């Protein structure tokens, strides 16, 4: 047997890592169950990449324990490498090689796995098989990176920001490929700062901020537990007619009130009662409405609720 039976594909406890004066990971605990797609969601600089690279055996932690597929990097590194599929953030593969040459090279490192051509077909790069990597689009390059991660038929796939910088169509295409891999029952650890990506792909999500876990659960659970179902976003009032925000908290069904620059965000459980009440309140205060929209709560709203900041603070 390669390793004992395990229910957890990854177990990380009390992980800490600092770079010079920056504390990147601050006592993180993660457990990824075998067969699930687990998401690390957080803003840039939250410590996601450091955490993943420690799990991938590329970075040594200052302290803490990491167990991958029931094995440890200190004793089973070469065995582990054969069973992990890794896609790093912004790796530039050699531009002068063709897609086929690149995948074939990656394939040669693994003892098992499908033929290079088969993996290329799986990520839908058939037509680009003999094109130079330098001539591929961003989405095609990411699919090639995925092919290189899948080439050893891994038990556990690590994806670090797989769709960052891609256009919506290329992102959806990549999601479909990741879902395809998920169906085979293997495990995925995914980092992202796109909440829609995490909601679509992940069974469970850990939201991290400043190297700490601030929430854990399935996307639905997180949304249900931390915020109401709907979010109302509006701007109203002017310098002469300022809006009295505190009055909004008294409206029935309003759970949370955030202000962001000029905009006000309300979390409400029932739109059909809260919206008329809100409009009545604005009329009472005599402030005109300049913008108004509503949406169903997302992981982004969870993050805003927990930290008071948006995920992508540009």
């Amino acid at each position: 047997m390669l390793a004992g039976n395990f229910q957890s594909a990854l177990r990380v406890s009390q992980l800490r890592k600092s770079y010079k004066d920056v504390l990147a990971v601050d006592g993180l605990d993660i457990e990824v169950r075998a067969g699930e797609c687990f998401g690390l969601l957080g803003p840039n600089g939250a410590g996601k990449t450091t955490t993943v690279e420690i799990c991938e055996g590329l970075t040594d932690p200052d302290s803490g324990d990491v167990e991958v597929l029931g094995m440890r990097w200190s004793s089973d590194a070469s065995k582990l490498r054969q069973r992990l599929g890794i896609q790093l953030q912004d790796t530039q593969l050699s531009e002068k090689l063709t897609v086929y040459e690149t995948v074939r090279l990656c394939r040669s490192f693994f003892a098992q796995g499908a033929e290079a051509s088969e993996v290329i077909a799986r990520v839908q790069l058939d037509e680009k098989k003999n094109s130079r990597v330098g001539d591929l689009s961003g989405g095609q390059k990411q699919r090639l990176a995925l092919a290189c991660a899948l080439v050893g038929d891994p038990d556990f796939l690590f994806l670090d920001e797989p769709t960052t910088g891609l256009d919506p169509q290329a992102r959806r295409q990549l999601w479909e490929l990741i879902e395809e891999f998920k169906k085979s029952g293997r495990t995925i650890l995914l980092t992202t700062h796109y909440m829609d990506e995490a909601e679509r792909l992940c069974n469970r999500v850990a939201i991290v901020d400043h190297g700490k876990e601030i929430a854990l659960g399935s996307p639905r659970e997180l949304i249900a537990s931390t915020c109401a179902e709907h979010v109302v976003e509006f701007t109203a009032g002017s310098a002469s007619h300022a809006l009295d925000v505190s009055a909004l908290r008294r409206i029935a069904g309003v759970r949370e009130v955030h202000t962001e620059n000029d905009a006000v965000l309300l979390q409400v459980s029932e739109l059909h009662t809260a919206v008329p009440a809100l409009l009545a309140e604005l009329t009472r205060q005599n402030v005109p409405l300049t913008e108004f929209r509503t949406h169903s709560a997302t992981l982004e709203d969870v993050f805003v609720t927990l930290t008071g900041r948006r995920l992508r603070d540009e």
Partner: protein
Amino acid sequence: MSENTISEVRVAAGEQTPRARSFADHPLVQLTLVRFLEFIREPEAIFWVFAFPILLAAGLGIAFRNRPAEVLKIAVVSPELAQSLQREKLLDVQTIDESAAQEALRNGKVALVALPGAGGTVEYRYDDTNPEGRAARLLADRAIQTAAGRTDPVATSDQFMREPGSRYIDFLIPGLLGMNLMGSAMWSIGFAIVDARRKKLLKRLVASPMPRAYYLISFLLSRILMLVVEVGVLVGFGALFFHVPVRGSLLVLSSLCVLSSLAFCALGLLLASRVKTIEAASGLMNVVMMPMWIASGVFFSSQKFPGLMQPFIKMLPLTAVIDALRANMLQGANLSHMMPQVGIILFWLVICFALALKLFRWR
């Protein structure tokens, strides 16, 4: 075991007989192939490694080719003198008046002016610090004395030595070969590694199960493959167009080239062990290579430098490589005659490689 966990599934799959993998699927073969493909798809690299040394050798070979013995121009002011001097084939004699002759001497159009003096004497005017002037004086005097009836007491004969092996081009080809071995080894390994580190490709490779040593070995293997072409082209060019001799054994020459290339690869690896940008890498390489281009005797003998510097120059890897190549190609020396040079090359190889392995960073 009621739960069908991943490890069980995997172990079951692993029990199937693994598909036999061909030689071409070996990671070392694939890595070397990739090095080779990356090289030949870079037209600039092809130029610098193959075309440039040939153009340089051709240019310098033509500029410094051996001309037939030069004819010296002299001026005389009397027809009688001209008559006796014209028998000397190495002199081009023109008869002009004295002031014109003086003018021609002053601006270097003639090397010497011969004037008839009082009572049958002859006066030579020339610049005694100019070798041409002195040569013209000897030739002119011999012609005049012989014409006047002097006989030489000792019979002499001339034999001309214009043999390959002692010309500038013969000196130059081993020098260029050494310089090329250094340049191609250091640039190819240094640039490729720094570029891969910059693009985080090194980190990606380390994340895969690739054996790390294979990555470095693939550079050495592809370098040795390329060496066959590089050395063959330059030595072949010299032999074919300039008849540059290869007097030593070809086996010794090949071994020398491989050893030198490995030593420079190690030096390139050391320089590239931590650098993260191409600019820093090329600066570092130039700083290391420049002194050797100048001092190691590529274009002129390293003996021209003061004696105090000689021990240091002798210790430079390129000096040792070029000295050994010249000894092999021009003097036909075998390995036992170039032990000091081989020792120096080995020293650099071992030290640089050991240091590089200690300092090397994959990210």
